[in-house]
């Protein structure tokens, strides 16, 4: 990273966000192959879709 970039005004915000990052998740992901990371992403997408559908259904049944 060039020095000029690291001194930009957005840095304090980025540093603040870093405190809340779950490093254990990153370490888990870094142990996977790139292909495995994408298969995991698609499973997560599927799960998010299922959750959305379930939420819509629950709201419509109220």
């Amino acid at each position, binding site marked *: *990273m060039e020095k000029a970039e690291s001194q930009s005004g957005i840095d304090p915000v980025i540093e603040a966000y870093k405190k809340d990052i779950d490093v254990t998740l*990153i*370490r888990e992901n870094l142990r996977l192959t790139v292909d495995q990371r994408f298969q995991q992403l698609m499973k997560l997408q599927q799960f998010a879709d299922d959750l959305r559908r379930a939420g819509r259904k629950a709201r419509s049944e109220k």
Partner: protein
Amino acid sequence: MTDFNALLRLLVEHEVEFIIVGGAAATAHGSARLTFDLDIVYRRGHTNISRIVNALKPIQPYLRGAPPGLPFDWSIETIEKGLNFTLVTTQGALDILGEIVGGGGYEQLLPETIQVEIAGVECLCLGLESLIKVKRAAGRPKDLEVIAELEQILDESK
């Protein structure tokens, strides 16, 4: 759901010259964040645009968010006249980008890429440091948390 495997295979099988960028590139580098679309930077030029048009035709590309029924001609001429297209296809959301802020086009990004294997095909993906650089250049509020994670990945990878 976006079928990243299917989209990437389709592009590679049709010999499209492209670079994975955006959230999918972050995933390739180890990001734990959920992304719903595949962003690629494609080489401008008639031959490559022709390959993109042929590759995507079977999956019915249409402008994402556009009202149904709006005339959209998926053709070489359309792509040549435009630059960046956010598309929905039968295999999910796909953004084909002629240029990205802070990174430029395919030729500028090419030296900054790494080769990755996804779904049995070899693709080019923007390198981690360059991905951080373009996210910083874009300066979008929604990217700040992403940048924080990518920089953490960079530290962990050292």
